[in-house]
Every structure is written in C-alpha cells, then in structure tokens.
C-alpha cells in the first residue's frame, strides 16, 4: 500500500540516460531547474516541456511511472494554486464572500503549477535513472572542493546513501507492522483526524524501535569492518566522464542558450 512512493526509487532499464555519468545528470538537472526560473513565458515553458519529453523518451522510463511520482505533490499544487488565484490583486473574475479571484492570480497559479510539475518531473527522471549509490557518489565527487574548508563531504555522502537505502526497508517494515496491527483489529480509516492520528501510534512506535535497532546493527557492522570515514578511501568503480557525457553537456548548453534567446526576445510575463 505504501509502494507508490517513487522518491529514491530506481527504474531498471538500458538507456543512454541510464548510462550517463551521475555527475552529468546532476549538473544537467540543476541547469534545467535554473532554466525554469529565468523567464516566465509560454514559449520558454513549451521548450522546457519538449526537452523533458525528449529526455523521458530517451530514458525508456514509462510516463505513467513518473506521473505516479507526481501524486504526492498534488495537495501542494492545489494549495498554491488556490492561494494564488484568490490572494493576488488585480482584475476580479468572480468573488466568493469577501475573497476575490483575479485574472492575474489565475495566470500566476497556472505558471506556478506548471513550473512545479516540471521541477518534480525533471528531478524524478534523474532519480529514476540513477541508482542511489551512484547519485551519492556523484554528490561526493562534486562537493569535493568543499573539503578544503573542512566540510566532511564523504561523511555527508555516506549519511545520504544510508538514508536513501533505508527508505524501501522502512516502507516494507511499515507495511508489515500495519498488517500486524490490522490483524489485531486496528482501524486506520474511520473516525476524525484526531482519531486517525492516534491510530497511527501502534504503527509509529514499533517503526521507530525497528529503525533504531537497524541503525544500531548497521553501525556495529560498519565498525566490525573497520570503517573510519573517508580518509584514504578508494572506490571500486570510480566515476569517469565519457564521450556521451560531453555530448549531453553540449545538448544542455544548447538548450540553455535557446531558453535565454527565446526569453530575451519574448520577455517575461509580468506577474
């Protein structure tokens, strides 16, 4: 029942996007996110959509799969849209009691929603085509320069990869505990919000205990193998850029230039 969460999930496939160096993907995703925020106009957004669709097709990840990952932001989307529509000054379309919906608000709501969807969609493609291990490797590699100012880059990357690794485990565990409590007559559905929240205690307490137990075991296992942080540590499969990474960078540079050019000549919509 909890398996719909796509965060940190990997979609196994053979595609050029999967084969790219994770650092390349990380940087391009970052560039893409920036491109969404430079200009606000329909032409730029269309270009961004085309880019997104092409990359998705290339990655062989089914659209359905990514769209499922968008579900969790549905509420956020609705909330921001409503706030924008009703609380922006401008030309009034209709009003409910003292709250007025405005044309400007509607416009802003549409742009914001589209931007948010592209944002999550784009980063989902990255996480779906990159295993968590490679992703954290990439972050470690990209943040290396920060170790000069005594930031424990390796340790942070290790913490992140452990956290990501534990998401599916804890999801499974939650599923099991919920079933066990259902078998004892627990009810997670009926009643008001307070009752529903209370009904989660029998799930949360065992879940936390299990998380601590797992953390303890893992720490012990790491210590037993003499783990002592990043100093002097080498990798079995070090990251290396290949020709396809250069190609990918070139494409993203062309994309960014196109966005800037189109944006420059069409201008931003005033919001």
């Amino acid at each position, binding site marked *: 029942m909890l398996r719909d969460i796509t965060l940190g999930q990997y979609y196994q496939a053979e595609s050029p996007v999967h084969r790219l160096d994770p650092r390349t993907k990380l940087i391009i995703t970052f560039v893409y996110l920036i491109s969404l925020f430079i200009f606000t106009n329909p032409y730029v957004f269309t270009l961004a959509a085309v880019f997104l669709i092409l990359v998705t097709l290339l990655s062989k990840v089914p659209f359905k799969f990514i769209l499922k990952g968008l579900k969790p932001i549905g509420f956020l989307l609705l909330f921001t849209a409503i706030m924008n529509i009703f609380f922006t000054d401008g030309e009034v379309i209709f009003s409910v009691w003292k709250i007025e919906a405005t044309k400007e608000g509607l416009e802003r709501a549409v742009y914001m929603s589209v931007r948010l969807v592209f944002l999550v969609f784009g980063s989902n493609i990255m996480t779906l085509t990159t295993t968590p291990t490679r992703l954290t490797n990439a972050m470690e590699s990209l943040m290396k320069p920060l170790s000069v100012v005594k930031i424990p880059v390796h340790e942070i990357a290790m913490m992140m990869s452990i956290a990501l690794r534990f998401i599916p485990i804890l999801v499974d565990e939650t599923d099991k505990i919920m079933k*066990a409590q259902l078998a004892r007559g627990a009810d997670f559905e009926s009643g008001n919000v307070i009752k529903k929240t209370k009904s989660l205690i029998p799930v949360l307490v065992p879940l936390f205990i299990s998380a601590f137990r797992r953390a303890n075991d893992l720490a012990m296992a790491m210590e037993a193998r003499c783990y002592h942080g990043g100093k002097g540590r080498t990798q079995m499969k070090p990251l290396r850029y290949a020709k396809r990474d250069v190609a990918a960078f070139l494409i993203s540079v062309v994309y960014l230039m196109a966005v800037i050019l189109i944006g420059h000549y069409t201008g931003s919509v005033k919001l």
Partner: protein
Amino acid sequence: MSLFKRKNNTDTGKEYGPEGSGENRKKYPETDTPDPDGKNSSKDPRVPLLVADHLVYEYSRGTDHLVRALDDVSFSIKKGEFIGLIGHTGSGKSTLVQHLNALLSPVSGTVYFKGEDVFEKGYDRKKLRSKVGLVFQYPEHQLFEETVFADVCFGPKNIGMSRKQAELTAYETIKKVGLPDECFYHSPFDLSGGQKRRVAIAGVLAMKPELLVLDEPTAGLDPKGRDEILTMIDSLRADGEMAIVLVSHSMEDVAQYADRIMVIEKGKKLFDGTPHEVFSHIDELDEIGLAAPEMSYVMRELKKAGIDVNTNVLTIPEARDEILKALG
C-alpha cells in the same frame, strides 16, 4: 491518509470478476451442506470453520515482474484441527495465511468463514480478523504499549470489548501463554526474546479467535525457547474449540504436534494429509528440498541395511518402539 484508503479499496475484493466467484459458489455446496441462504449455515456444525476455495494471488500485477504466489489452492479447516503448513521460504505460505483473515484479497477464488464469503461486499472484515487471529513472523516487532498488560488489551479493545472485559481477557490470556505475574506491568521491551513473543501471541489470542494462525512462531528462538513456545501452542487447544494453523519449515516441530500437514511448493498445494501420510512421500519431499523428520531417514537406512522396520516413523519414541520390535 489516501495511502490507507487505497488499501481499503482493494480489500473489498473488486479484483476478482463476478463470473469467477459465481463458479466457486457452485462448487462449494458439493463439498458441504447446500444452504443458499448462508445465514443458517454458520450455525450448522457440518460446515467447516474455514474454506479456501481455488485461491490465486499474483504479486506485481501489470508489470513484467509478475509472480504467481498462489496457484489454485483449496482446502478446508475444521473446528479444533491442528494443521501444519510447510513450505520453503518463498513458497507462498505467508501469502496464503494473509488471505485467511482477508489482509490480502485474491486475484480469483475466495475464502469462506463459517460458510460466508469474506471478500463479499459488506462483509465485516474487522470482525473476521478477531475470529481468525493471525500471528505474523517476529510478532514481537508489533509491540508498542508501555506495559505488557496494556499491549495485550489492544486487540480486545479494538474489537469492541468493554474496558473491564478486555482487561479480564488480557489477564487470562497472559496467564495462558505462561508469563509470570511480575511481567504484567513491565515494559514489553525489557523482556527476553521468547517472552516478548509470548506477549505478542497473547495479544492476538486475547481476541478469542476461533482459528489461530501462527506464521513461523519459533523463528529466531533458541531450542529451549522453541520447545516452550510449541508446548504452549499445543496446550492452547486443550478445550478442542480453537483450530490452529502452524506455519513452519521445521518438519520435526510440525510432525510432533499437527494432526494434519499441508505442503506448499511454488504456490501450489502438494500434499495434504496426516503426518504419516505426508511423510510417506519422503522421496518427493527430498526432491523439492524439504526434509522429512530425521527419524524417517534413520528408519530408511535401517531398512536398507536389512533390518525389517516400518519406515513410516516420525518421532523418536515411535522409532524406539519400532526398532525394539524389529530386534525382538
């Protein structure tokens, strides 16, 4: 909260088509008393406690990783029976037992409890879960209350018992599973592994189920704890009312206690009969990698060595008698 609601939707058993269940309903009266009404049948003593009717279950449907975990499994359980359910890891045992209290709903086929289809719309599945008590693997991982007593009260309170009644039942049950009095107000997390497991089993037992299903209740316990738990489970059927399904992969455990054994392999029911019947298929069991009780092997070797013994022997006392007899 939407996460939980979805579960409910699949729970209502929409997944199997009407034609499938119609066919099943026709088959059902053949094996037992026909009763179109279904209401009276629950009182008829001839109706089995629970009937699993051609259950099929598939994991990861609609993807290319489809796994058929249950393939046309049917059986019935009578009142007071002690059934051993045996199979490898991944054979579908755990999937099967989750159908018995409607935690999973089958792709096709259905389960009847006292003659009523539990996947029918409007069937009270919460009540079913109190009547078919399911103890999961490592049940101590579900404990959450501050005291042992409060944790055992959780189930009875959920099914609508009054506070007093729930506490009374909890008291009785904790006694029944053999926990000492001083444990009552301890935190369940301070107990030993075996004791925790007893508390967890008590938590299910306190709902007074008519069928108790235990999924590998001895996993991860030392031999002493294992024997204690099994003896305790055996003692639960003293009054002959409650039926028990014991899921295990230890042949010794099951052979010693069960009246009937079912063997599941790759989602299919392979054997179903008394321990002696099932373990007479020692070669087939060997083939799928499920060993028969050790004594069966001893007797087989003795026979090969030319000593005239009955090879269908399961426990050590039985083997002792048989060898003494053969030696005169």
